[in-house]
């Protein structure tokens, strides 16, 4: 530590430590959260889409998870955000699935509605980037087969597989996100792989 003398007295450098204003803290937190959310948002959407099989519901689930994370956990250390975010998302997905089940039971009593009148939106349906036709076809098939297989997994296996394999969380983080023990995560993940391998062995 350096000491120096002024007219007012002797000071050490510790006395002149730069204090951060609340605005600076807010900007730093906002930037860090922005970075974190943009790093997870697309995979989170994919996870929600596979679980809910509906783009709008998946977007709602991801948005709710983002809102809740910022609202309740922005002050928590950044390394805790990922498992917290996926835990919130998992809860939101489960709520939406339950609500959908209840709605399905009610709707079963009502006359069915024809959903074929939805307009085709070429911009929305357009792929975001190009690949060679052969490669593209191969990937299309692989993506289609994997998405069907993953969507058909039991919910806990699906969660464990997507968080571990796709999002890259470790066993501890996955357990925290799923709200279960590490042993359960390993079991669900192993069974998910077995199921997927049995279905996709020929395609992959």
């Amino acid at each position: 530590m350096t000491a120096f003398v002024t007219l007012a007295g002797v000071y050490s450098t510790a006395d002149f430590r730069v204090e951060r204003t609340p605005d600076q803290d807010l900007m730093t937190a906002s930037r860090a959260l922005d970075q974190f959310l943009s790093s997870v948002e697309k995979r989170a959407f994919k996870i929600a889409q596979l679980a809910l099989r509906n783009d709008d519901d998946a977007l709602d689930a991801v948005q709710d998870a983002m809102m809740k994370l910022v609202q309740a956990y922005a002050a928590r250390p950044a390394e805790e955000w990922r498992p917290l975010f996926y835990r919130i998302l998992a809860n939101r997905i489960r709520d939406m699935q339950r609500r959908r089940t209840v709605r399905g039971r009610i709707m079963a009593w009502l006359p069915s509605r024809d959903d074929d009148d939805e307009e085709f939106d070429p911009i929305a349906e357009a792929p975001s980037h190009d690949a060679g036709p052969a490669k593209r076809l191969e990937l299309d098939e692989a993506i289609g087969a994997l998405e069907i297989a993953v969507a058909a997994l039991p919910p806990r296996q699906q969660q464990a597989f997507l968080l571990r394999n796709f999002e890259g969380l470790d066993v501890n983080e996955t357990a925290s996100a799923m709200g279960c023990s590490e042993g359960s995560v390993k079991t669900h993940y192993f069974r998910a792989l077995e199921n997927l391998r049995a279905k996709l062995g020929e395609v992959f």
Partner: protein
Amino acid sequence: MTDPTDFEKRTQEVLEESVGRLDGRTRSRLTQARHAALSQLEQPARHWWRSYVPAGAAAAAAVLAVFMWSGPTTQSPTANPVEDIELLADSDAPDFVDDGEDLEFYEWAAGEVES
């Protein structure tokens, strides 16, 4: 059968590819969702009691209205202690009990008025 590690890598690659193919509308909506979430940080913190202020004000107004609605109280004009206190406290009021000299003067004055 594919080696487990290769299988896991392959599924990961395929899922990443599917993320890369997300359409523009979805990407845009995700960005909007992120901005909406982050905008919460810019809003000033709300104190819990502020949400009760309108209800409290309404309750106070209702109590005041009921109090005023009950009308004037039945009170005799002579029995107004507030006015008595004001009279006694007034510095310009005559001092009836100051000393005997003034009292004699008031007795004389009263006699003159009667005669």
